């Protein structure tokens, strides 16, 4: 394994993807339909990252009160929905998760 080649290649591949759009941004004008579609990107991507984190454990869906991540996520959704306060959502979501985790750990 040639580490220098591998890491240089990885660095170039990663930067190329991150940069190509920014670099060409002067020449790109996005069509209204594309701009409309892009409004969905942040919520859709973040949901796609979170859903497996919360619901999957070693590849299987865990819908159970024993899944502390699911309980913490439900708490976070409720807090976010009711308060629209990001910091409060993070804190109460984490607290719920940690409490639930330690409680279920003593049960099992």
């Amino acid at each position: 394994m040639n580490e220098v080649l591998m890491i240089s290649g990885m660095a170039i591949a990663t930067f190329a993807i991150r940069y190509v759009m920014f670099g060409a941004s002067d020449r790109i004008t996005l069509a209204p339909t594309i701009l409309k579609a892009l409004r969905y990107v942040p919520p859709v991507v973040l949901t796609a990252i979170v859903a497996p984190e919360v619901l999957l454990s070693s590849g299987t869906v865990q819908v159970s009160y024993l899944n502390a991540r699911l309980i913490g996520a439900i708490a976070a959704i409720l807090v976010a929905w009711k308060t629209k306060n990001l910091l409060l959502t993070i804190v109460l979501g984490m607290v719920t998760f940690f409490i639930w985790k330690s409680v279920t750990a003593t049960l099992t």
Partner: protein
Amino acid sequence: MVDSRLTSSEESGRTPLKFPRAEFWAGVRDIFPLVVGAAPFGVIFGTLATSNGLSVGATLAMSAFVFAGSAQFIAVGLVAAGTGWLLVVLTTFVVNLRHLLYSVSLLPHIKPLSHFWKVMLAFWLTDESFAVAIRRYEASDRSPHKHWYYLGAALFMYINWQLWTLLGVTIGQTIPNAADWGLDFAMSVTFIGMVVPYVKTKPMGIAVLVAGLTAILAYPLPHKLGLLFAAIAGILAGMLSERTQQASTTH
């Protein structure tokens, strides 16, 4: 914290973040929960990489020059399996494809910046810095310095990743199982707190549901492709729902 500040400035029409420095530090502050969430992964990466055949120098260099968590983990797995460097590079390319979606979304905001800024912000583009930066760009106040906010957030994320990689490489073996800390859950709750306010219309609700469901179903796909498919499925579902909604109101 950020919420109250942004809403108060929106309501009163003031622009409290007039200065680049204020934007920079606001970015640093707002990415903090995601920095905490990334910490255990940095330790695990440092520990895993060195115990799977990567040299200490290569491990640190990967975090410093590639700076892409998922791709780094997948690369370590491939190295451990004896994969050649070219295949590792190609896999990295595929794993990082989702950044195209992020950079297109940021494009309208990034356009007026100098080339130097574009290079910097591109190098430091991650899931986390995108999530935080796009939120700032979409806030209704017209600060001309929002790229400083992005830089502050991205730079904190970068320094944090280097530090925890270094800790993993050096004393990782003595640190009790970082995967069990539960700190990674900070990312989940932060992203939930960011997503929920978007869900104000039926098309957005449908888009988010479809994305979440597809992400679960497509999770077994290799190279994080499930995430990309889920995002595209969500966008299409939202657009389709928007169209049917318009069609029903015009008839």
